[in-house]
């Protein structure tokens, strides 16, 4: 999985001019890709008088926008809401998806195949189709405008279950047998023996679930009505509407919503890229 060793090209000693051109074009393309992010960040560091000055490095950088926006409290609240929702849903998926994936991969019992197919078939159903029944359910049980209301549809996913099942199938049965002979119960065998063997898959699942819930917009927009319970994307959207043309404020809000995942990426790049590859190949 080492990236540097992966390229199938020729050794670097024979650098052709074509290679240099390709590298340069790739690099320029990459810079274009991050340009929107750079503009967003640089504008968030400008005051209203500098917004029309399109230099990427602000002439007089200031953190005033951040202190103003974070000072009014709403963004902090939305940030915390998003964090609570994303973390709990991620933990729930890591626990339940792998428990179900493990059971379907490693236990022999009647009905196993039917359950697997039934869970897998839910992948065919788009979220948008379930949103109206969920909304009805949430309003009947009083879940509208609550953390649980935002979280309940995503507590388990068929995608995660399928991914974990694929990985648990690669765990040798001998390991589990040995633990059984030692008298460990099945729950301990799963949690203490099998789970540590699939940590790459667990981190892939955690990354995807966290990112998906951190950026989720459609369902939180529907299920929340009071500003106190908005997640960051929904809050940002309502905030931006209210700012109308104060672009430096909007860019500051957008930066606050975006920076956490970008910073996490800088630290965990290797794991995240590997996780995306794993999920893409096995999923």
């Amino acid at each position, binding site marked *: 999985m080492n990236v540097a060793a992966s390229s199938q090209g020729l050794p670097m000693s024979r650098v052709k001019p074509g290679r240099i051109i390709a590298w340069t074009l790739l690099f320029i393309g990459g810079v274009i*890709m991050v340009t*929107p992010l750079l503009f967003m960040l640089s504008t968030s560091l400008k005051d209203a008088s500098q917004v029309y000055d399109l230099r990427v490095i602000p002439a007089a950088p200031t953190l005033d926008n951040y202190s103003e926006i974070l000072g009014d409290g709403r963004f902090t609240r939305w940030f915390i809401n998003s964090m609570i929702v994303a973390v709990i849903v991620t933990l729930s998926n890591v626990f339940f998806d792998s428990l179900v994936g493990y059971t379907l991969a490693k236990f022999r019992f009647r009905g196993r195949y039917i359950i697997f197919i039934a869970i897998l078939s839910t992948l065919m159903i788009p979220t948008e189709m379930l949103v109206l029944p969920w909304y009805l359910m949430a309003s009947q049980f009083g879940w509208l405008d609550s953390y649980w209301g935002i979280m309940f549809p995503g507590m388990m996913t068929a995608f995660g279950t399928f991914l974990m099942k694929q990985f648990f199938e690669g765990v040798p049965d001998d390991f589990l047998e040995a633990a059984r002979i030692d008298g460990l119960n099945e729950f301990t065998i799963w949690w203490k023996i099998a789970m540590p063997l699939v940590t790459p898959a667990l981190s892939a699942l955690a990354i995807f679930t966290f990112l998906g819930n951190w*950026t989720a917009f459609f369902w939180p927009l529907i299920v929340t009505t009071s500003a106190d319970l908005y997640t960051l994307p929904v809050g940002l959207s309502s905030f931006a509407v209210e700012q109308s043309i104060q672009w430096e404020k*909007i860019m500051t809000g957008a930066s606050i*919503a975006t920076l956490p995942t970008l910073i996490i990426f800088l630290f965990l790049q290797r794991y995240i890229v590997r996780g995306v590859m794993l999920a893409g190949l096995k999923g």
Partner: protein
Amino acid sequence: MSVIAQREAASGGLWSRMSLGQKQVIWAWGFLAVPLIFYVVIRFWPTFQAFYLSVTDWTITKPASFVGLENYKRLSADPLFWQVFRNTFMYLILGTPISLLISFVVAYYLDRVRFMHSFIRALYFLPFLTTAAAMAWVWRWFYQPVPIGVINDILSSLGIPQQPFLRSTSQALPAVLAPAIWAGLGFQIIIFLAGLRAIPVTYYEAARIDGLSEWAILRKITLPLLKPTLVFLVVFSSIGFLRIFDQVYNINTNDPGGPLNSTKPLVLMIYQTAFSSYEMGYAAAQTVVLFLILLVISLIQLRIMRDR
């Protein structure tokens, strides 16, 4: 977990007399108990309910009563629906090939690059980690007229006339699509890279010994062996473009889906029918249509890609 504890307490002596196989079966159902309830209540039941609601006249104020295929008839006669239908497919027809072409070309060359490989890969991947709702506002700002909008500023400094972008019925849809393509490229590139890496190097060596050109190697070895990756990405990105919502909603909050509904996708129509007009039954019929479109598109693509 309390389920397991309860069951163990209740079974007592019986438990010790069971065979290992029987115990395993009980453990398995114990593990599956909570998830099965979840899947039945949160996935299966709502699926049937969505179909049922689509044949009722349920609104927020009025309880649902059966109206047969009335909602579907109304939908097929609704000019807005056909406009939305066209828009939704435009997102797909433009978005999928453009994004796959760009990401394949980038991945193909990036795979051969060693110098600063992971840095360049990171540049392409970063947009994938952004929040669509936030990025829609960044792009909305880019598309503004002079002197606010970055793109028009650049155009005018090059002597090119200003473009209306989001204000024009013909330019708005591609303008909304651009951030969606942009944000998805990183994921596709990573998946292509993984696919390219899975092709054994010996194939390339053999081809070079046989004197095949780079172009022939690409056509005869790389692309055929990439087919599983390609199938996955085509289906995955098509479904993504057909379900586009966050970008469209946020890039024009004054008139979501505007101007004149020229950017409105099906999911936005569903949202507005359900939560602005409160016609839940009618909206449910639209969600069933979305489901059918996704199903048909996925099946057709899987079929085509398998045959080839």
